[in-house]
């Protein structure tokens, strides 16, 4: 059996989990192609105008699934950790994008709610397995594999492995010739952690994974930045550290991703080896409207250069380039102590004081 998996939203942080689950059940996942102009345009036509860019992209990917899939998988990610929720737009999936699913294609869904604890998730996945004609035992083993894959992925990312290379690895699994993750585990990954050129500034790029790694949607931001800076991400920060950096909040944040963004962002804002923090957001994001401002205040307290980049489907490359260049210039000129005062001559440049 082949099931379609849209390269959008939850793909960017939980694909390894699902790759493990479905591989164990002997089901092949077929991911939609990388975003391109056609995918985005299909999304814009199908999705509600009021929603955010990532949901529009999800719609586009649903309409761009390979034609040989027998169903599409659209989980409802209610919560990915205790005491938190995903954003309301994510809770509204899959129903809010059903109109974008090709006609006649069955939708397979499952509620994933870690808020209620592991037992609940296991129960939900057993039920999903049942729908797919698998036994409880098979589903339970698949759940174990899913968790293992996800853990391996997160380790890979923490150790500095890039998103693309990590995902390529998991996309290669679950195929007939896939090798699976060996028990030898993590030894072969990592190594590249924070050790590139000394001369480049270090920039922390904070943002929802479905924006940070969506290279079409973010106008190739990563490769633009990589040419001029050493990048660190939210994924490089350990969960315990994230919790640590949120201790002083008066009330706990109840959005799973907002919490990670703020905690990781704060850890970079106070890190002396990080030259600046860029928060990548998108127009109409409710949770970001809070967290980007909270992080701005923290960054300012620590005199850390900070910039918010807001994307939507109208984003022009020029605007992003100008902001990124200005941000990097700001850091560079500060670093080399190139005060703009040198060479000033008072000769004929005056000012009008009316």
């Amino acid at each position, binding site marked *: 059996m082949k099931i379609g998996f849209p390269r959008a939203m939850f793909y960017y942080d939980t694909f390894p989990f699902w790759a493990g689950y479905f591989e164990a059940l002997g089901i092949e996942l077929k991911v939609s192609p990388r975003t391109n102009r056609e995918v985005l345009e299909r999304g814009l036509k199908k999705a509600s105008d009021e929603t955010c860019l990532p949901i529009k992209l999800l719609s586009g990917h649903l309409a761009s699934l390979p034609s040989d899939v027998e169903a599409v998988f659209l989980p409802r990610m209610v919560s990915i950790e205790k005491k938190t929720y995903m954003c309301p737009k994510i809770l509204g999936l899959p129903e809010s994008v059903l109109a974008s699913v090709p006609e006649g294609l069955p939708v397979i869904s499952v509620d994933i709610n870690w808020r209620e604890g592991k037992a609940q998730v296991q129960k939900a996945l057993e039920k999903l397995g049942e729908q797919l004609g698998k036994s409880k035992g098979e589903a339970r083993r698949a759940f174990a594999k899913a968790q293992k894959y996800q853990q391996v992925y997160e380790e890979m990312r923490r150790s500095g492995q890039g998103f693309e290379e990590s995902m390529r690895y998991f996309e290669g699994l679950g195929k007939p010739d896939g090798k699976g993750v060996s028990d030898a585990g993590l030894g072969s990954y990592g190594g590249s952690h924070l050790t590139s050129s000394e001369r480049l500034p270090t920039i922390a790029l904070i943002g929802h994974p479905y924006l940070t790694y969506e290279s079409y949607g973010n106008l190739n931001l990563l490769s633009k930045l990589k040419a001029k800076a050493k990048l660190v991400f939210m994924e490089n920060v350990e969960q315990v550290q994230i919790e640590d950096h949120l201790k002083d909040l008066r009330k706990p944040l109840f959005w799973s991703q907002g919490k990670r963004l703020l905690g990781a962002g704060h850890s970079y804002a106070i890190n002396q080896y990080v030259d600046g923090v860029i928060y990548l957001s998108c127009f109409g994001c409710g949770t970001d409207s809070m967290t980007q401002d909270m992080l701005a205040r923290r960054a*300012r307290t620590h005199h850390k250069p900070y910039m918010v980049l807001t994307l939507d489907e109208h984003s022009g490359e020029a605007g992003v380039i100008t902001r990124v260049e200005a941000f990097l210039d*700001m850091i560079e000129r500060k670093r080399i102590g190139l005060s703009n005062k040198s060479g000033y001559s008072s000769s004929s440049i005056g000012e009008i004081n*009316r």
Partner: protein
Amino acid sequence: MSTQNRYFLGVDVGSVSTNLVLLGSNNEVVQALYLRTQGRPMHTIQEGIKILREQIGSSAEIIGVGTTGSARQLAATLLGADVVKNEITAHAVAASRVRPGVQTILEIGGQDSKIIILRDGVVVDFAMNTVCAAGTGSFLDQQASRLGIEIEEFGPLAVQAEHPVRIAGRCSVFAESDMIHKQQLGHPLPDILAGLCQAMVRNYLNNVGKNKDIQGPILFQGGVAANPGIRKAFEQELGQEVIVPEHFAVMGALGAAFLAQERVSMQGQEQTRFRGLQLAESSFQARSFDCNGCANHCEVVEILQEQETLARWGDRCGKWSGTLKNDERVSEARA
């Protein structure tokens, strides 16, 4: 050759205006041109060069060129620039040369607005307006013509106001309907204009200036700084003096000229890449085409001088822009 005849050229090509500044060897502004771009940036740049040449004579030597503005890459290709910089850096450099110790720059241009925060001569924070063009020069232009006044009269009239009316400045469409409503109620024109200035300033400070630590000295630059009504509204809202520098309308170009000077003196670059003043006569062409190499269908722009391709851009993958030797010069200069 005497140093008297050697200049740095700064060019700022924005959506509304194209500005050129010639900087002399004593850091004096020898020429400052403010031309309307009118949707024809290449033509306007050539026009500007023509005017400059008439002023300084063809024996004058340009020893460094810097470009900035939204068409900075295009300008760099045409002119052969030594440095290509974003508007934020260019404005900041110009402001801190003109007024050392400046801590805040308010800049409002034709289609965009920005705020730059400096401390000890270094930019520490900045912001630019988002997609919305409410509260930029174009909107003021539009409203002036709707009210049947010249844009030059706008500010002087606004400062005469006794009771500025309150106008919603959040969105230019709403601001306009609010203004019409106030007109129909019989409010005098100066009060409406002053109200509009206050609304624009409020909008600017709430959006672009949000979260920014605005401290004096404050410089107000960009085309809109010509409007004393806006300046007054800023002073009222911020409770301190707002300085409009002499060359407020061409600060981006001035900054680009200083950056060219910096590049030439710091990096010991011997020769400028400038194509020469005769480029005013050269025939430049731009054409564009859709690349069909993949589903992205990038719109590629190609710039030609006398049928020879100078540069291409617009492609995401580098298939077109990467194939040109000439383009390396542009990308080098961009760094």
